[in-house]
């Protein structure tokens, strides 16, 4: 009986899976068009899966091995099952392989089941609790029905009254397994992640993030420039269908593992954001419905079941509730911790900024100080509303060379808006001192410089970003320089990765990178470190956004500092809370993100935390009862400089560079 039933079951499940796949693909394609290399993407998919995705999954060894066993076992078992039981190639060799594959899958499924015994809070429950049972059912069922093919049969299997009963049980097991694994894959069960995830890897919106055969992963922004010339062109994302089709595909790839939730600083601070829930809300939006069935942690302070979405309806309501509340979107610090952790390579941050764009450009509803900051950027080219003519006041005594005078220079020092901030002015003065000590040929734009547009863009004001960017690019095009050096990772990221789309291509270095190079070239000499324990805080826009983890550590090492790393450092660094305009929109939570970060510092016992970003400095220095001093790398370097003139006579430590500032 099974011999006739199995092919029917298998091909029925396959047919339903194909039907579901077509429906799901058509659902994704309701989104906006996106230019994607279809064939190239499909060709690159195996590499992206086996290397890039596995690299992320392998951060959790047990889970990684579990997944290799379960998924590898399933893929081979499924393929062999179609051959053996569907098409009838029941040779002992294939049968044996199928038995082995289903055994491996069964073993993996046991580990999946074990994790589900007492799942951590970040994991979603609901249908996901059913998955290990389905996996066990599939692997066990396939194993048992395959036993006859290699002639291993329990005695009396095909005779007697037990035969029909056993066959029925086996058929039920296989049907359950096939239902979850084939049918559920394209009709919205937990296995959907395999189908959508594979295609998402192929048609990813930011393919340059994947490693290539000849080196590192490319650095890029996920924010695509909006067409502002055409008044008909949409400004950001209003409804679920306003996302591009491959973004929608990406949302569907989510496995609800909650790794994003575990690292999200806003979620930890009790602000109403949970990246996992946000992606699930986007999935709900694609088909319409309420979030009542969502089985994971909600947005802090927002009960489930109150929000409803509609494929063509607004995601954020002007008044009242829709799919997502605006404050959820404004809680994000754009730190990309979620993106870095996501094993499915989902781009949460870009989706959030896309939705923010609509809120700012169409609703005119940037919360709290947002409107004021944007107005300042429009009127004065800096977020603080300072007189643009006072950008160089901090350097009145430094006699900085101006690009407008020298025209051509090795290094263009980009000051950033920290030039208006008294704290960051100390960093800038230190940096100038370092550059002079190394004899670098540098100049500044001075009053010709404008805000890079980082804050405007993250607040969703693409118009102001493009206006600032185009004017900056026009200014930069008048001068010749080999590279731009800046102590602001936000400017670094925007100048280096976001101006390209608007026609500005530059070599940009963070000051830590440049100082490391100068030191390697023997142009800087440091006195040995005499201070206490030091830790280093990785800025998001330097680390996760641009992959620069080493240079700052190398500089600290050159200073003779042995960095006491925080529990969350490097690519797992916790945000200071200052990115993405979060201090401007200031969505209330239960605690402050910088306080949490300073607690990380406290745990290392460090007396000083080295930073490399004006935002981080401001946020971390704003923590009261702080356990550690906050110093920029440039300041530490300037303090330790041994100038050539006095290096021959005495090796005493130099006076602090910022001594003259009162």
């Amino acid at each position, binding site marked *: 009986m099974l011999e006739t039933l199995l092919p029917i079951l298998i091909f029925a499940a396959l047919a339903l899976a194909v039907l579901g796949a077509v429906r799901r693909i058509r659902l994704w394609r309701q989104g906006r068009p996106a230019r994607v290399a279809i064939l190239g993407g499909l060709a690159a998919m195996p590499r992206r899966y086996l290397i890039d995705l596995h690299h992320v999954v392998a951060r959790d060894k047990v889970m990684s091995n579990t997944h290799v066993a379960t998924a590898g076992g399933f893929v081979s078992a499924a393929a062999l099952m179609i051959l053996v039981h569907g098409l009838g190639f029941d040779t002992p060799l294939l049968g044996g392989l199928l038995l082995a594959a289903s055994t491996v899958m069964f073993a993996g499924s046991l580990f999946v089941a074990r994790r589900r015994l007492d799942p951590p809070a970040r994991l979603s429950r609901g249908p996901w609790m059913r998955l290990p049972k389905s996996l066990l059912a599939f692997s066990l069922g396939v194993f048992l029905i395959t036993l006859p093919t290699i002639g291993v049969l329990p005695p009396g299997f095909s005779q007697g009254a037990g035969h029909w009963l056993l066959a029925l049980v086996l058929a039920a097991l296989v049907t359950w397994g096939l239902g979850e694994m084939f049918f559920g894959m394209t009709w919205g069960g937990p296995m959907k992640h395999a189908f959508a995830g594979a295609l998402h890897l192929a048609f990813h919106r930011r393919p340059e993030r994947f490693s290539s055969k000849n080196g590192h992963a490319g650095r890029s922004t996920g924010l695509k420039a909006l067409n502002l010339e055409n008044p008909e062109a949409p400004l950001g994302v209003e409804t679920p269908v306003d996302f591009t089709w491959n973004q929608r595909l990406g949302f569907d790839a989510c496995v609800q593992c909650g790794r994003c939730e575990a690292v999200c600083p806003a979620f930890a601070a009790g602000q109403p954001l949970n990246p996992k829930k946000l992606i699930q809300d986007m999935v709900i939006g694609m088909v319409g419905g309420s979030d009542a069935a969502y089985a994971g942690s909600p947005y802090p302070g927002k009960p489930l079941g109150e929000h409803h979405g509609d494929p063509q309806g607004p995601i954020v309501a002007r008044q009242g509730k829709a799919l997502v509340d605006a404050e959820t979107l404004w809680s994000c610090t754009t730190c990309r911790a979620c993106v870095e952790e996501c094993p499915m390579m989902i781009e949460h941050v870009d989706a959030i900024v896309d939705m923010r764009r609509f809120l700012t450009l*169409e609703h005119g509803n940037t919360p709290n100080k947002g409107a004021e900051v944007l*107005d300042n950027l429009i009127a004065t080219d800096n977020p603080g509303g300072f007189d*643009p003519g006072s950008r160089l006041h901090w350097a009145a005594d430094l006699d900085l060379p101006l690009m407008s005078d020298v025209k051509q220079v090795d290094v263009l020092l980009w000051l950033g808006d920290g030039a208006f901030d008294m704290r960051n002015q100390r960093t800038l003065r230190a940096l100038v001192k370092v550059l002079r000590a190394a004899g670098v040929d540098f100049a500044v734009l001075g009053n010709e410089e404008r805000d890079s547009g980082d804050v405007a863009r993250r607040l969703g004001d693409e118009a102001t970003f493009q206006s600032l960017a185009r004017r900056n690019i026009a200014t930069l095009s008048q001068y010749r320089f080999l590279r731009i050096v800046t102590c602001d990772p936000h400017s670094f990221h925007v100048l280096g990765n976001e101006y390209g789309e608007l026609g500005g291509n530059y070599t940009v270095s963070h000051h830590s990178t440049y100082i490391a190079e100068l030191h390697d070239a023997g142009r800087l000499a440091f006195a040995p470190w005499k201070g206490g324990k030091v830790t280093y805080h990785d800025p998001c826009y330097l680390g996760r956004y641009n992959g620069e983890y080493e240079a700052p550590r190398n500089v600290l090492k050159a200073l003779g500092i042995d960095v006491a790393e925080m529990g969350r450092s490097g690519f797992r660094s916790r945000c200071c809370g200052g990115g993405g305009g979060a201090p401007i929109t200031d969505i209330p939570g239960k605690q402050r993100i910088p306080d949490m970060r300073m607690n990380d510092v406290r745990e290392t016992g460090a007396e000083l935390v080295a930073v490399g970003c004006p935002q981080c400095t401001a946020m971390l220095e704003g923590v009261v009862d702080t356990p550690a001093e906050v110093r920029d790398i440039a300041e530490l370097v300037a303090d330790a400089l041994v100038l050539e003139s006095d290096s021959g006579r005495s090796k005493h430590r130099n006076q602090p560079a910022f001594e003259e500032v009162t």
Partner: protein
Amino acid sequence: MQPDSRPFEVAVLVSVGRHPLTGRARRADHDARGLELALGLGRHLDRLQVRAVHAGRHDSGNDTALRGYLGMGLAELTLVEQPDGADVIPALATVLTRSPPQLVVTGSRAECGEGSGLVPYALAERLGWPLVNGVVEVESIDNGVATLLQALPRGQRRRLAVRLPAILSVDGAAPAARQSAFGPAQRGELAPLQEAGVIDEAFAEWTFSPARRRPKRLKIIKATSARERFKAAAAKAEGGGGQVLSNVTSEQGAEAVYKLLEEEGVLR
């Protein structure tokens, strides 16, 4: 009584502002607050029609500034086209008489140009309508009478009832204007309206210079304790030094004013 079928019409007069630091054209702060006040009337009225009116020229220099008003949620802005150097009062009066709104809202003073703050007064005189300045809130509109809150110094408020049609002017005490959104600003239309310009002859002879901050009389506080300093800071302005003249001839009045100006060092 207003028949219910007719929408309540408000005209908001808007000008091209100037940022105090950079001098860039922008939506004028007070005018934007006026528009905010008008748009907020939707709370009291079922059918509200807000019309923004600008008298002047439209060029690339002030396009963003005018669109800044559209970005607050207007579909169009009436542009009463006037040549440079024209006195806009006659044109505005003509436009407002041709299709009279129930309420006209203006800012208290332009941010550039003449900036005399006289537009609402001149219009009120021409139209023969009552004028209330420093309005911060329209509390209700019933049977052609609006109940208003007017700002007085030191945060004081005065409730006034005014018969419509009327002109209201707002200043910095009124609630801040909403954010101007780029999308509606770009899509909104500037609807031109040709109107004969009356050239202001006197205006042509003026020389313009950047405004300076008004000098402020130094307040010397001789307090020695925090409590005294606080009292001095919070104290009401005391009169006392003045002199009330009533039933005097114009010569006597002028003489008193002249004497005061000499005492204060304004005239030497």
